[in-house]
């Protein structure tokens, strides 16, 4: 099977759909079922739904288009067949005897919400806010891959500086992997800005702080 890779389009309506919401664990923590080939013509590739991938969900509030920003902070595989120890019905010419529910195997992704932003008429992101999103998402809401350009805009403040004002919440929601989510976002941002950008040094310090804290928390440094 070949998948044609589309050039990155930054219009929010043209972004790749990664999956749909199936449940939530808290106001900030949603579970998304990743689309498979059977669900979508263009299913997300493994590197398009990787750990640390920024995502967004389009939401209309009082008629205004908004984006609720999030990040994949966890993944989980579901296989209903797992743990079955009964007699195998598979034959030598048939790798697996799969009466029906092989298609029920699926990949779930945990998405933590980061903030919100408004959508311009051109379908671009504006007015990023790193405050706690007030709205609740719904089951079947579509989660899209957030292109780099939008991710970058979301992380810029008015003064042209970078911001991760959600850092405290993501560290909390992300649990043991919280710091890795942040480091992954930092890594993405680092590649989006020029090497000479003054923000690189800010990223250095923030990254150092988070790494150090993570190492301390995990007992590497005491």
């Amino acid at each position, binding site marked *: 099977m070949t998948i044609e890779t589309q050039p990155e389009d930054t219009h929010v309506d043209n972004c790749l759909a990664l999956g749909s919401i199936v449940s939530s664990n808290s106001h900030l923590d949603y579970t998304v079922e990743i689309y498979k080939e059977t669900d979508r013509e263009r299913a997300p590739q493994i590197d398009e739904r990787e750990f640390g991938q920024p995502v967004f969900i389009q939401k209309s509030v009082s008629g205004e288009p908004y984006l609720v920003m999030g990040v994949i902070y966890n993944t989980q595989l579901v296989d209903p067949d797992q743990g079955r120890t009964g007699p195998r019905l598979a034959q030598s010419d048939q790798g697996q005897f799969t009466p029906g529910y092989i298609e029920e195997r699926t990949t779930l992704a945990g998405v933590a919400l980061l903030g919100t932003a408004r959508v311009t008429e051109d379908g671009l992101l504006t007015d990023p806010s790193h405050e706690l999103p007030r709205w609740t998402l719904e089951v079947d809401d579509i989660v899209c891959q957030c292109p780099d350009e939008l991710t970058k805009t979301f992380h810029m403040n008015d003064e042209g500086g970078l*911001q991760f004002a959600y*850092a405290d919440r993501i560290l909390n929601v992300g649990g043991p992997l919280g710091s890795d989510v942040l480091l992954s976002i930092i890594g993405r941002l680092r590649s989006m800005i020029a090497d000479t950008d003054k923000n690189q040094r800010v990223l250095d310090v*923030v990254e150092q702080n988070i790494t150090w804290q993570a190492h301390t928390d995990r007992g590497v440094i005491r």
Partner: protein
Amino acid sequence: MASPHRSGGDSMNDRSDVIGAVSGPGDNPNEFLFVTPEDQAVKTGEFITYTVTVEGESRDVFARVTNREQIRGLPDTFLADPAVAPETIAATLGVPHDDTDLYQLTAMVIGYYDTMMSTFANPRQLPQTGTPLRIAPAEQLEAVLPNLGVDSTTADVTERDGLAHTGWLLNRPTGEVNIRMPIDEFASTHLAILASTGSGKSYTGGVLIEEMMLPSSRAALLIFDPHGEYDTLSEMQTHSAFEGDDGYQPDVVYFDEDRLRIRISELELGDIMAILDNPSDRMQERLAGGWRAMQNKDSRTWGVDELVEQMYTMYGEDDSSVGGLEWRLRRSIQRNELFQPEANVPLDEIVAAGQCTVLNMETLDSRNQQLIATVLLRRIYRERLNAMRGRESDIECPVFALFEEGHRFAPGSGSAPSIGILRTITSEGRKFGFGIGIISQRPSKIDQDVLSQCGTQITMKIRNPTDQEAIKKSVEAAGEDVLRELPGLTPGQAVLSGDAMNTPALVQIRKRLTDHGAGSLSATEQWSETYDRQQSQPVRSEPADFGGGESTGFEEL
């Protein structure tokens, strides 16, 4: 939520001048802690007040801020890259950083001003948590910090007579809280100005001299000046600030080496012994006999010749000890122009109200300086004793004598003839109106008995640990918090403590009205000037002209 009416008895309506609130007691029984946000820049050493009710009366208690610690602020890890401001990191991570710093300050209770006792009284109770604290008002501090005996904390002391305007509180803007020390207090219970070289001790001495010579005080001052540093004081004679309504203008009299004489009969046996070269026991015994005999005579104008003749009469012409004594006496006393059978420094010429006499002892060696001081102090003390006992006296008014390089006159180790009389005056002079001021850069080298009797201290920058230790041991009022300040002071800043103050205060010494004469030489400037001059003078044998520098001893170079 906490009640807006916390303890402390203060309502919410006027809290605009509140700089912080008490957070609890400190380590020490007189200490409390308080918290203040970043924008309230309360410095260490600042005086703050709070109100307590003592025996039914509301009292303003003064306290001094002694320490400052940050209790909330950005973490050190935000400082990892010097090129990136920590605020930028905070903004990036969404950490609040504007006006979020919190400081915990330690304050030491001084007490409320007890108008009955005219000093601070400790309320023996720490302020309760939440008590609002305010910066102490300038007028109140002016009235209660120096020992002025005011009968109310709101008394106006700016127009009072007999006060020495020494400077202003260092923590406040220039001239906001002026410190005026009562001259009567330090002139009777003695004064010590202790500071390392170059931190302004002579300058401070100059300021006090000026204050004492103002028309409102008209002191009788005597300055023992081993370095000739006080020659600019003569400006007081023409300066308008020293002009009194009644035509008063201070008299500044300089006594140079050629007018400094000691009449031999004024010396005591001990002084002679100290001058003589290693006399044997027998010689000492012979000298004592001869000396006593001479003292018993009516004539007070005898010299070495008469003394030697007296000893030969008493012990025989061929007494070898007297022979040895004669040789020693002639060498040490007769050949020293300082000692004269008749000439003397007339006391009425050096001590008078409204007169500042500078004894310029620059060219004398230190032994002679000590002897001059010894004999003069002894004579003045005797006259003051007479005056106080109603006997005829040459000195009718109290005297204040200031010793520059005080460790020369009262050294802690070795012998100096002047120590005895200085100890006597510092311990008893108060009763007879004879005050002493000691200026020194080596407190550790001053006789501890003399230093500990100096009731008022002006201490400036001192880094040497031995000297700090000496101050700690001998200066009662020097608490730990005063000592801690000493290494950090810059020239012109001083800690005033002791009898003239109700509590120690950190002060910026005021500017002198007259010029300061004791600054360091600018060696490089003078070298290049001299070099230029030498180059322009073709004849090398001509003596180099060093110009009229203010300082000493050029002519002899």
